């Protein structure tokens, strides 16, 4: 072999070795090897075929380069024992050894493809199996030359060696593919499990929130019953009065009408309280929707008013006009507010009657990410001192004889689920203030 040819083969080999290390995938590697092998013009066509396990035992080209794609499209190679299995492409798979045809014009084993091959200018060809040790990819690397007797012994050994390296590289890439897929699936499984755990947590939170709502309402039951009783008593008295007036010879219809209007108003008041209670007890966790914070505040008032009145607490409201709408579960937000109001009322039970003043204040805060609605519940009660501060929001932390210590912990988890913040501050004078901040709808 001429020095120049040897030199060129070495150059090609270096380029192939580089591909073995560089290729990101099996397909890319096979294609790159074919491209490299035809690049210097020594061969007309290079292709790699894998043997199929179908009944016809076809050799399917999976990468090819050079001159004569249509030759491969038209030709069928097999790795079975019959006529179509005699070409090097199939025979090398079947036997596991390099196979070649020195002269396509005369070699009888190549007769099914002869005409097409000669038309493409091929004079000789060779196939080396993709085998490395015990690993058999069940495929071949095929080279076609314009010269007869192009594949002498040393060339065949050279390309058989390349095929072995190629086989090893393919196996490594397949191993990586397996690794990549496995780690992708593992990561997905982990994130799915996190998602499921979060859903379960959310579910548990919703149920807990419901249970504690029921309990809170239980505590309020006496005062609420009293609250409803009042309008009912008034309705009964008014109705009796009307009946009495209607018995008269000339009933005072104006007065009767006025009284009936009062009855209607009282009924509305009672009905309103009842419908608030029912909504409040509803179990369902509704999907978050737009809520007007002022509406949320007004919604809890019928539920706490009676309790506040019973303890002689004066409620003051200061609501900003331009509060942003927030996204949330209206009932759960009401629950938070109710908890804060109840705590405030409870903190003022022991203080002097004239100090029993509770302020609900709402303000807008403009932050980097837009406006936030902030609702503060400010009392003048016993306060919590600085040492209690850290544990206030812990579950089961309570300083009350009948307390459960759940109110603030539930409230905080609700506000967290709304991407908001709940915190407490000590007032300069007396008592404490609890703040709820919720991001406005974007």
């Amino acid at each position, binding site marked *: 072999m001429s020095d120049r040819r040897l030199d060129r083969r070495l150059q090609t080999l270096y380029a192939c070795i580089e591909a073995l290390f560089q290729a990101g995938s099996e397909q890319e590697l096979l294609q790159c090897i074919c491209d490299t092998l035809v690049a210097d013009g020594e061969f007309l066509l290079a292709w790699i075929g*894998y043997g*199929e*396990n179908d*009944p016809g035992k076809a050799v399917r080209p999976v990468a090819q380069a050079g001159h004569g794609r249509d030759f491969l499209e038209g030709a069928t190679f097999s790795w079975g024992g019959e006529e179509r299995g005699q070409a090097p492409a199939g025979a090398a798979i079947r036997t596991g050894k390099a196979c070649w045809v020195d002269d396509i014009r005369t070699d009888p084993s190549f007769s099914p493809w002869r005409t097409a091959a000669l038309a493409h200018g091929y004079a000789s060809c060779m196939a080396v199996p993709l085998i490395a040790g015990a690993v*058999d990819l069940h495929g071949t690397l095929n080279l076609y030359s314009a010269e007869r007797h192009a594949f002498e012994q040393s060339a065949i050994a050279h390309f058989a060696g390349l095929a072995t390296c190629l086989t090893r590289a393919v196996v490594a*890439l397949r191993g990586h593919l*397996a690794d990549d897929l*496995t780690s992708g699936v593992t990561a997905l499984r982990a994130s799915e499990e996190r998602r499921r755990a979060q859903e379960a947590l959310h579910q548990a939170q919703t149920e807990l929130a419901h249970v504690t709502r029921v309990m809170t309402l239980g505590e309020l039951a006496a005062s609420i019953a009293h609250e409803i009783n009042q309008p009912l008593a008034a309705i009964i008295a008014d109705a009796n009065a009307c009946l009495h007036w209607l018995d008269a010879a000339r009933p005072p219809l104006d007065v009767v009408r006025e009284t009936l209007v009062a009855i209607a108003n009282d009924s509305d008041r009672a009905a309103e309280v009842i419908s608030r209670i029912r909504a409040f007890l509803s179990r369902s966790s509704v999907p978050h929707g737009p809520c007007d914070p002022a509406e949320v505040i007004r919604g809890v008032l019928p539920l706490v008013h009676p309790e506040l009145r019973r303890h002689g607490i004066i409620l003051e409201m200061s609501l900003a006009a331009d509060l942003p709408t927030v996204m949330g579960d209206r009932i759960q937000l009401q629950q938070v507010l109710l908890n804060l109001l109840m705590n405030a009322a409870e903190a003022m039970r022991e203080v002097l009657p004239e100090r029993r003043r509770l302020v609900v204040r709402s303000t807008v805060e403009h932050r980097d990410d837009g406006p936030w609605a902030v609702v503060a519940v400010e009392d003048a009660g016993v306060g919590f001192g600085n040492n209690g501060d850290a544990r206030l929001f812990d579950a089961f932390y309570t300083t009350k004889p009948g307390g459960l210590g759940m109110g603030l912990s539930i409230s905080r988890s609700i506000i967290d689920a709304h991407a908001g913040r709940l915190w407490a501050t000590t007032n300069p004078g007396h008592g404490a203030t609890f703040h709820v901040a919720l991001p406005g709808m974007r």
Partner: protein
Amino acid sequence: MIAGLRDFEGGRISQRELHALHRSAIQDTIERFEATGSPVITDGEQAKHSFATYAIYGLETLAPDGVPISFADGHIRILPRVTAGPFRYKTPADVYLDIARPYAHVPLKQAVSSASALSLLYPQDGIRDYSRQQYLQAVVVELEGEIRRCLHKGAHVVQMDFTEARLSIRLDPTRRLLESFVDLNNLVLERFSVDERQRIGVHTCPGADRHSTHSAEVDYAELLPSLFELRAMNFYVQLASEPDRERVLKLIRTHAKDGQRIFVGVIDPLDPRVETPEDVSERVLQAAQYIPVDRLGTTDDCGFAPFSDDTSRTRETAFAKIRARVAGTALASRRLGLD
């Protein structure tokens, strides 16, 4: 049909004409399938381009040069490769169900691809700004939607083609990949309730190949233990073409979980000889020795679905084979005293 698909690819007919062709091919298949007396039928999977990739055929975010893969039918296909996110189905299976349902008078089985098959379309060197995990997540979501719609639209059962099990062992002899495949498919299956899963099945043709003496062949013994880890309730298992059916049946008995129903393949679509009802009945009776009859059913080894590059199998033979399955199954249930 196959000619039609070529014409479409060659731009000789329009998408509309291709759809019309699908429609009439499906109608014809369903009529003939029903005529075999088979209690559950398929649309013949006419419209599928190739079973791993039908749902994504024609997507713009695909390149044609993905992994060269040897499928369970022995053919090597070069899978397409996803080139960009986000991943969405183009033609989910329920679209085919919509076409087939008006023609069908008996329950329809709808095939879908598996998440594990689709997982192979993600390129080995990754996609910028679209991680493998994101891709897999999208696949799971698409498949869940597809299966749900099929169930909702009245598919009698939805059958997930899990044919790359054998391949996975060849790629990774340590079996970690197979376990990942099972895990990934379970991520889809777990999104369904136990009741819904009664109508979801998995199809496998992982058996050893008779034609092949090839050392890389993978045996059922390596696959079945993992296979039954899939949280499906119905398994369609290739058996007819197995050289040693008894051995496979024993493996099934050992590894199948309580409540999993096994539909054994009693027809070998690759065998040019048409089985007789007697052959089928014998195969069923043999299976009944290993699988309780209330959990045993019959099926064809693999669908007769024509691949778009394969014209070899004749439809006549296919329907004759299905008739033999129906008659043979009936014969066997009489012999088992079930009628």
